[in-house]
């Protein structure tokens, strides 16, 4: 069944989009992430312009993180204070990100920036995760306990605050900074940022695993809602029809993914996720390096009549 996407200006097959939503939802449910880093590239690969893909995926991630956040809230696995401090940074970062997005688009360098950011971010994070997963698997095979982590320089920063539910006493500076970075990346790249946020919160801030995913979902939820509205106001690029199909497919797939994820050991999960992220990053890199078949692109910049 064909459906015309009003903003992307493209006819698409409804079942293809639903299937893509479900597939990405499955993966996101399995790893406890939003899945934007997979969804945005997939949309770009089927011919939707990167700008529309980024803007529309934001609302899709908002939907999946909201349904996730509700269930984590019920299990009291969200730290409201930590989420709030992250959000202060997230809001600033999103606003910065959307204005950067608008600027780059007018310069004609948006597509390149999106592609480059994907290459850099995904290959780095993917490789790190893959490596970390390998190490963890080897440790377990040899029966060596995980090395004890010492408190780093992060914990010497001023402006400390008590986060009750996470049982932490921590400076707000790194928390706000992380929020800014995630909000910025999310708005420019069309990712929720969960796949970066969760490891960063665990390794850098030492947030306990009980609250880390739920709290990161709250940040993703709000930054993505904010990004949706800002993209709609400034660039008119949010395709609501596309977004709705992705949401429906995504939230359904996520439920099955979450069940599948429980059957896999966490270090194997990290290894798989690392490989997946790495693969998407490499796909973007290849695209940039090989000579494109069409060197020219055209874009309408305003109808006069």
């Amino acid at each position, binding site marked *: 069944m*064909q*459906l*015309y*996407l*009003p*903003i992307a*200006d493209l*006819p698409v097959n409804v079942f293809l989009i639903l299937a893509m939503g479900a597939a990405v939802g499955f993966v996101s449910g399995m790893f406890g992430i939003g899945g934007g880093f997979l969804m945005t590239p997939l949309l770009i690969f089927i011919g939707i312009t990167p700008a529309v893909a980024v803007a529309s995926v934001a*609302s*899709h991630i*908002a*939907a*999946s*993180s*909201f*349904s*996730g*956040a*509700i*269930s984590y809230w019920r299990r009291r696995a969200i730290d409201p204070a930590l989420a709030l401090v992250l959000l202060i940074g997230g809001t600033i970062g999103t606003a910065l990100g959307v204005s950067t997005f608008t600027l780059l688009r007018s310069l*004609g*360098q948006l*597509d*390149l920036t999106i592609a*480059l950011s994907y290459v850099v971010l995904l290959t780095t994070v993917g490789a790190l995760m893959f490596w970390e997963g390998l190490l963890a698997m080897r440790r377990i095979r040899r029966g060596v306990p995980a090395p004890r982590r010492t408190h780093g320089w992060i914990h010497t920063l001023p402006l400390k605050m008590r986060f009750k539910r996470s049982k932490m006493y921590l400076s707000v500076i790194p928390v706000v900074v992380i929020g800014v970075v995630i909000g910025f990346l999310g708005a420019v790249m069309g990712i929720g940022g969960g796949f970066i946020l969760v490891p960063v919160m665990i390794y850098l801030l030492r947030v306990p695993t009980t609250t880390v995913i739920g709290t990161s979902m709250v940040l993703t939820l709000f930054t*993505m*809602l904010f990004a*949706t*509205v*800002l*993209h*709609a*106001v*400034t660039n*008119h690029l*949010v395709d*609501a*029809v596309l*977004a709705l199909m992705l*949401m*429906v497919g995504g*939230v*359904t797939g*996520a*439920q099955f993914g979450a069940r599948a994820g429980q059957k896999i050991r966490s270090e194997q999960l990290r290894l798989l996720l690392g490989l997946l992220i790495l693969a998407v990053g490499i796909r973007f890199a290849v695209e*940039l*390096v090989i*000579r494109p078949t*069409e*060197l*020219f*692109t*055209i*874009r*309408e*910049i*305003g*109808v*006069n*009549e």
Partner: protein
Amino acid sequence: MNARGCFAICLALLAASFATGEANAERLIVSVSNHRVTVTPNYSGEELVLFGAIERDAATPAAPRAYDLVVTVAGPRADIVTRRKERKFGIWVNSDYRQFVKVPTYLALFANRPFDDIASADVARRQQLGLDNVLLTQRIGPDYADVVPNDAFRSAFVRLQLQRGLYREDTSAVTFITPTLFRTGIPLPAQVPIGTYDVEIRLFANGALVTRTETAFEIVKVGFEQFVANTARQNGLLYGLVTAAMALMTGWIASLVFAKD
């Protein structure tokens, strides 16, 4: 025939020849099959039909002339930027660009035989026959100009528009049903921009323009998709808020549906 009757006919002929401004008076009468094309969500391209007749009156030379017809359909105009990728630091990036100023977003050039056969190269250039001769103004720095047809940006622009089906050139599209009755199809792909389309029909004989006429049609988009697109452009904030609310609703419904297990 009495003298008064003869005088009346002479007057009528005189009036007719003044009206067309031509000594040998042919007139074009045309009509398109539909003056208002409605594009619905499941629109997958349509073809308008243009019918016309060449009307000859008594002043027309008795010897049968070989007529040629050129039909130009131009959609709403817009500024379009064409960018070229170049290899920099090992990767392909957009570097140079040209802005095409107020060029048609849809352009179809149809004729009954190749433009070279219809008129000389000089006439073809003046009359803008063929995509190579159509005026496509570029802004190059502070200057506005059309460039040679084989300019890299111009030819890329035309090529991309041809690929999208928005620019067309077909020198066998116009068919003569009788020596004075003709028709042509105007294909309108699904991605046609909305707006007013001007149709110009020009009649050539012996390599020279004889007469011309114009008509127009309008393309409107209706349905839910268009409503969404309009709202997105006109009420960005409201649209964004509704989309955000939709995201929350979907997430909430999902958590209700799947909460049991």
